[in-house]
Structure formats: structure tokens, C-alpha cells
């Protein structure tokens, strides 16, 4: 039983991260969705960093009437160049244990050599949130359940999912079951990741089933 359930103690968070890293080491090559998963050490802080390619299909060039992007002309020029020569943008999902709420918090950013995806609400809704989650996420907080804040380690602006409801969500998802630290993290990704395109690849979940065969 997790000592701080529905919150997560630091030692349980570390254990959960290590388990997921172990899964990826064993089965990561059976999937293509996640490009990497690693633990990042920043002073006293440890967090889990998952990357995946920004899906091409989601990338829609901006309307020409969207005039608040200064570098738009450049973007259009580059669109002319063959798509394959455009470097792939990567989504970073950083999972950090909040010292305040004592639950994992998801920070999302897009790394792009061409800086096409600044952390603005436009980027969030055009490139990160799958269509069927849009109405759901727009109606929480002042401007939505996902907003921009500074990353606790890099101190740069990134998207994040407000953590104040997380413990309640986890409690509702787990119910009366006893979960391990790793199961907690999987439930957490399942409950919070979907709306920003973070899912646990099936190959990692199926690991045990394969082992049984």
C-alpha cells in the first residue's frame, strides 16, 4: 500500500519512475511511439522525461489572418521546401513530483529547431490537444485546465496540467484497489496524459502477457 495515497511520496515516485524505465529498457524496441524516456537530475530534483515525435497530421499551417505571429512569412517560405527536409519537432513530457501537492505534475513543451511552436494557447489547441478533448479542457480554471507556467527545473515557459484535482482523479480511478507505485504512475498517465497525446505504448503494457506466453 502506498503510504501517501492518493498522493505519492518521493520514494514511491522514484520507484515508479525506475519501474517504467525498466519496462522501456526491456520492451522499448517493440514500439515507435516514445522516442526516449529518461530520468533527469536537476540539483535536488529528479524527474522523468518522455519524448515522442510531434505527429505530422496535427500540424496545420496557420491561417494568413492570424497576424500575431511575426515570423509567419518565414514559415510559409519553409513550407515550400520538401516536407522531408523539415526537422522533426519533438514533444517533451516531463513528469515532476510537486513538492506542494505531492502528486506527479505533467509539463509539456515542443522542441523544434525552427521554433514553430511557442508555448502559447494557439500552439496548445492546434498541435497538442486531440480534437475530442478540446471542449473538456477549455472549461476549467480561468482559461482552461491546461495553461502555461514556468517549468520547475528549466524555469522556461511550458504547458502544464493544473495539479490541484489530481489526487481526486487518482482516487476515483483506482477505487478500493491496492496499487503499487508503478501502477499509480500508469493510472496517472492514463488519466491525465490522454488529453495531451501522452499514452503508454501497448508494447510496454503487454510486457507481462508476452512473458507468460
Amino acid at each position, binding site marked *: 500500500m502506498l503510504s501517501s495515497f492518493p498522493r505519492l511520496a518521493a520514494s514511491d515516485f522514484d520507484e515508479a519512475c525506475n519501474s517504467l524505465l525498466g519496462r522501456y529498457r526491456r520492451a522499448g524496441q517493440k514500439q515507435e511511439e516514445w522516442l526516449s524516456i529518461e530520468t533527469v537530475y536537476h540539483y535536488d530534483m529528479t524527474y522523468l522525461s518522455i519524448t515522442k515525435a510531434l505527429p505530422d497530421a496535427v500540424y496545420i499551417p496557420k491561417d494568413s489572418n492570424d497576424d500575431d505571429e511575426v515570423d509567419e512569412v518565414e514559415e510559409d517560405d519553409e513550407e515550400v521546401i520538401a516536407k522531408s527536409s523539415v526537422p522533426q519537432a519533438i514533444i517533451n513530457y516531463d513528469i515532476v513530483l510537486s513538492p506542494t501537492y505531492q502528486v506527479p505534475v505533467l509539463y509539456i513543451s515542443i522542441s523544434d529547431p525552427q*521554433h514553430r511552436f511557442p*508555448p502559447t494557447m494557439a500552439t496548445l489547441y492546434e498541435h497538442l490537444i486531440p480534437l475530442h478533448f478540446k471542449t473538456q479542457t477549455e472549461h476549467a480554471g480561468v482559461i482552461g485546465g491546461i495553461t*502555461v507556467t514556468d517549468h520547475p527545473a528549466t524555469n522556461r515557459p511550458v504547458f502544464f496540467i493544473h495539479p490541484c484535482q489530481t489526487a481526486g482523479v487518482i482516487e476515483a480511478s483506482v477505487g478500493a484497489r491496492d496499487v503499487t507505485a508503478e501502477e499509480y504512475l500508469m493510472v496517472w498517465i492514463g488519466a491525465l496524459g490522454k488529453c495531451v497525446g501522452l499514452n503508454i505504448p501497448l508494447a510496454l503494457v503487454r510486457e507481462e502477457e508476452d512473458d507468460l506466453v
Partner: protein
Amino acid sequence: MSRDATSRLRQSVWNGSLPLEIRLHKGDCRTYNESDPYIIQFPRISYLGLLIHKLHAFFSSSLIYPDVAASDTWLSYEGVPLKWHYPLGLLYDLYSGAEPAYPPDTSSPSQKSESTEEERRHLPWRLTVHFSDYPNEQLVKLDNEDNILHDLFKNSVKEADYLRTGTGKTVMFLSKEDSTQLWEAVKQHDFALYNPINQKLLNPQGVNLRHLPVRLYLPHAASDSLKEEASPGSLRVVQSLVPTNLSSRQPQTIGTALNSILPTLFPSRRSALLAQAVLHGAVLPLSASVEELIRATAYLDGWLHIAVVMMG
């Protein structure tokens, strides 16, 4: 601290302000000669983000591209973009280079005149306003309706409340009117609007304060290692659970908190040896009770935002 002293201190923190001289960046200015600066006496505890509409209106006739939006506005000091959700006082304590004030009992008459000289050298604080090349990688982009600034503020208030009560129920229980009044108080810098809501937040019914909202800001020069290529003015922000009391008889002091969070910079709980904690332009005595400071000197969002400055 007596009730009276707390409320006097609360008032002087509320009234603290800095003169600002804001000039338009040359790259945004249509005339070869510089345009007039925007001059304002601005509260230390308030947010520069609340100025974007005034700045936009003031400078729009001088802009090369006058049709930019208020949300394109950003400010910098010596090349460092200034974060919108950091109160002005914190930004000044971190970046101005001004020497902080020391408690009066340790200062000799000569230090007094030095501090006036010091002020003359750093004030007004000269900032640069830009309307192009927004530093998206470093600053949260605001919107023209102040919703993003409001959201940043509200999240910070919620987090402070969660730390104090352990549940975050007070903010949840703030009525819609109270919540609106709090943001109005911030926007108008109106103590009469602010204080009743703040008192509700600081005195949750039937709950003792559990943890105290303290955040430490270390300029990279002050931190013990340089792991990544730091951009100008980049900071390490440190936050940790700070219990209100160490035991039933020992309240948490600034010294005990710093010693437990940053032991390498604060090896002693009683005397500052390597670094100092600066709040509202003053060096904090390590013996000060953190709870008393929260009640009397917290920023608008309920936090003590403390700059950690290396001793020269």
C-alpha cells in the same frame, strides 16, 4: 510580533514602490531619436504585466509597426527579459544590482549615507520595453484580456493555500465574489479590497497553518554548479516543504528553513556566512519567524519570494 507591528509592517510592504523609467527599444522606434520614456512610481508587490495596456497606448505612436497588440509587449533590464508573474520587487532584488538594506541595529551612520548614494545610482530603475521579437522561450506570453496573468496569479494563490492548509479548501471555498475581489484588489492595488480576502486565506477556520509558502530564487552565479548553458538572468528556483513549526516549542525561522533547504549556502542557522536572503529590498534576519513574515510581508499571492544573494 504584536498585532500592531504586524499591521504596520503589512502597510509598509503594501506601500513600498520603485520609480521606473521605461524606454522604447531602438529596434521598435520609428524615429531616429529616442522617444520619451514612460515614467511611473510602481508598487514593489505588484506585477509589471498589469502595465502592458498603458505602455502599449503610450508608445504606439512611436512604433515602427503600430498595429502590434498589447500582448506583444515585453520588458527587459540589461538584456534580461523580466518575467510577468514575478512581482516588481523580486525582479529588482534579483537583477538591479542594488545593495539590499540591513537591519538598523547593525548599520552605522556612514552606512546610512551610503544607502542614499546607492539609491541614487540605481533609481529610477531603467527598463526597456519591446514590441517585437517576443522571447517565447523565456517569458510566458500574455493575452490582451489579462486572463493569462490572472491564471498565473490564481494558480500561485491556490498553491500557497494548499501549503498552508494541506487541503486547498480555503481557495475552493472563496466565493466567486471573493475571488473576483482578490484579483480586482491586485489590479487596482487597493488594500481595502485585498485585506479582508487575505485575512480569510491566512486564517482558515479550524486549521493551523501546516506549511509555509516560501520560494527561493538563486541567480545562476549564486548556485553551486553550472550544468547547462544559462541564458542571461536565468535562475534556479527552489521550493521545498517548510513546516510552520519544527517542534511544538520551536517555530520555523528563516535560518532553520534556509539551512534545511540550501545547506551548502546556509551552513549555519544563526548567521549568514556565504549568502543572504533578501525580501522587499531588505536582508532578512535569520532569526525571523517564517510564519510572522508570511502574515506581515508576503507578496500578493501569499508567498515569500526570496532572492538569495551571495555575499561579496
